[in-house]
């Protein structure tokens, strides 16, 4: 599901988009809690608090949905990924 590398300005991406996509990509691969996401992102365990904070924010925005105790990419999130990448999310 990788975007084509392209120097074309039209294909540019904001840093905010890039970070968000990485987060969604992590969650998209596997239903996750903050600890799993922190592990998949490779950040230290002590940063879980920040990840949790961010997940809450993405949940509020509707990009993520809570499924019991785990989290998955919601419909809005999937659409967002598609618009960012210009192709269907895996």
């Amino acid at each position, binding site marked *: 599901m990788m975007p084509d590398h392209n120097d074309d300005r039209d294909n540019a991406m904001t840093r905010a988009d890039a970070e968000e996509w990485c987060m969604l990509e992590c969650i998209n691969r596997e239903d996750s809690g903050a600890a799993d996401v922190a592990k998949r992102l490779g*950040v230290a365990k*002590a940063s879980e608090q*920040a990840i949790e904070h*961010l997940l809450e924010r993405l949940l509020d925005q509707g990009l993520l949905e809570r499924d019991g105790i785990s989290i998955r990419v919601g419909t809005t999130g999937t659409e967002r990924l598609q618009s960012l990448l210009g192709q269907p999310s895996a």
Partner: protein
Amino acid sequence: MIAFPDLPDPLSHHIRRSLEARIERLLSRPVVAIVPRPEPSRGDGERERPATPGSAIFDALCDEAARHAPRGAMDENAAIWKTEDSDGDEDGSVHVSVKFDYGGTDRGREKEIIEELQAVVRDEGQVVLLTAEHAKMLREHPRAFVELDARPEAVQLLRFEKQWHGSVERVVGLELAQGPRNPASIAAIAVVPNLVQLERQLDALDAIERSGVDGPLAPLRALIGLEAEMPEAAERAPSDITPAEGELLDEHQRSCVAAAIGTDHFAVVHGPPGAGKTTVIGSIIRRLVDRGERVLVVSPTHVAIDNVVEKLTELEDRADDVHPATLPVRFATRPNRLSPRAQMYWSSRTSQTREHAIERRVEAILRANVHGASELFDRVPDDDTTTGALTKALAEQQAVICGTPIGILSHDSVANAAPGTFDTLIIDEVSKLTVPEFLGVAVKARRWVLVGDPQQLPPFCDAEECAWTLRDVMPPELELVCSVGAVLERKKPHQRQQTRLVVVSRSPDAVADAILGHANESAMDGMPCIGTLRDAPHRISSGVLVCKPDEVDSALERFTDDAGVLIEIGLESKVAISDDRLVDGVSRAGARIFETSFNTYHAQPWEAIARQKLSLVRFRKGLAKCLPTQNAIDKLGLDMTRPHIVQDIADRLLANSVSVYDLLLGLPDVAHFDATPMVELASRTPQELCRRVRPFTGVLKKQYRMHSSLSRLPRRLFYGGEALLDGRTDEDVFAGVRLIQVDRPDGTPHESNEAEVEAISRLLEQVSSLQKPDEGAKIMVLTAYREQERMIARAIENLELGSAPITVESCTLDSCQGREADYVLLSLVRNKPTPFFDNPKRWNVALTRAKRGLFIVGDIDAYLKDAQKRKSDAKCRGEWPLMSLLSRVIADLHAHSGEPR
């Protein structure tokens, strides 16, 4: 019936009174400059207004009219604000001519104003533009002015212009970053007193006094004497910790970390130079953050706090670590004083660089761990200004907040935090913080780790400023009598009799009697005649004449020659007298008490360790003449006793010039002192306080900075051989101390020495010409005097280091604490010892900065001769030698380093 002795007021009382007095002092002398208006043209409504009952309404209408004046009038006023475009840059800055209010009576006010403005320019501070109403309010009701909701317009002061008026230099013009929005309404420009720090300290005191005995601030209540007992606390600190992977800590460092993370209240770590304080602080922070705590890290110096930030972020290059402890926030108003690494974590109220630093680390982590992330980040344009969600989330985590006590409290997230919000406050260089300064930030936490070294620099003590804190302890007449004692004490007995002094008081008879009584009780020899105007019907050549404010001219005429004038506090505005006749604030009793006590407190206990006498300490004998005597109190009819007043003075010293470290466990043994009020200060039951507060303590005994040849002398002279032990065996033979003789030509000024600057330049040129210098060597040039430091800094600027990987910096002795360098060059400047040099703490700092080489540059021979003479004199008398500390240091170093060359 049992009579209970009077209990002294708790320390909190003295802190509150001291803070209030300091605020009063700042408000009493606002720096205000009048902006001269153009000559009023007919009918422009700017004539002087008579003070009539209806004038307030008229004033208000006039001010409003000025704001909407016809264009012609506006242009006339606007012409005062000249645009600065002489260099062709139209940057919006303006020049305005001003006339400062010197009050007509204050000696040295010109210098004070220049210093105040220099500080504003240096710190890129602001001045405020005042309407006539504002200016009047600032003069008459300064407190109300400072609390105005609608603040006057503030602009940045870029520089100022001076002109000589006779023998004094006065400020005549200001250059501001921009002109006023409404030039017509501006009548004056002022440097408004900044009360924020003092008010925050008062707020902290309020919070502690209001808090419950079981609340998080209870230990602080015990510290300042509001509680006799502490809440339950463990008796003993855990003695050890298990080091983390890769963590190298010696047994003393581990024990200090254990004490800091194990305390429920206070932990105190004694950290001599180079003993790994920063490593220990880093280790403490990581452990506290790991257990989910929020930590404030504070130091009074930027260097120390930057060292902590650098220690926490040294793992930055490891892309797999985004740990809250390695993402500190470095709060400061401006980033320019911070180290390059600390600047990466800088944040102020309005801007920050920290987020970008985090952003870079997040990007590196994502590129390394998330499939496809690299391709995505390669698509982010260089000029992208968005902040990623993950970066933002991490940046919002402020588990470790670092800053100076002022910088950290200028940030809302700390300033507005409720008492006890943060789990732990770690303070480095706590020996430089007074108790009120400590409380200002301590109130935000619930546990306190104090790291410092009582053998290094103490809190800064401005004796004249501190003297204000005695105003409610000594009534004005008593202060006046003691100030006469202070003036006479400074003179040698044969000069004392020739004193010519006019003393101005509300009650001349009682004060004249009291001066006589005071002189008798304090056993002052060679006293001049003392009396009122009635006692001197004819012209006199010397004496102390006491008179009322309206009799000053008559009193001055009684003397055959010029006489000085000493005015009772509160009567200054009633006496018009030329500046150069007034006895200034630093010569009055309050300032002399603070200055002499401060010097004695820090030097006298050292005499016993070093088996030597310091001339500085001998000045303590003069203290008795500046302190109230019972005779003076009785003659003035005051309902007070000398022991009570002296105890209050000792407590004010404790509140204003003693560090919180010393208060907790470092007050010298009372046996070291033989003079009041030092005896009262040291006997203020420190053991009782320790029993009450029970801090966990630890000492870092080994040093890892200095080559063994450099640590030997400070270890023996300042630590009694018990700390500053060498932590590693050094094989390096290219290390040690060298003394470099530079003759001091006649006529060399007191505070600068061109010959030494040239010698230092030659040394630096030698280093810069090396083909293969040490990798990354750092050289620091130290001197005690600012003027010399400026000259050395200019010489360094002109030095051509080429591609040599060497950095050279200059620094004064008082600002080098917390710094280190591979090589230190020390410029002595003078060839005769002065009391200023006799502070053991200052010399301990100077001698412990170098890692490999210390080169002392100056008239070494003069100091060696002095030491030799003093030692042989003392040997004959069978006493400890009375000599300067510098002579001692140089003689000891010379004995181990060979002949000077």
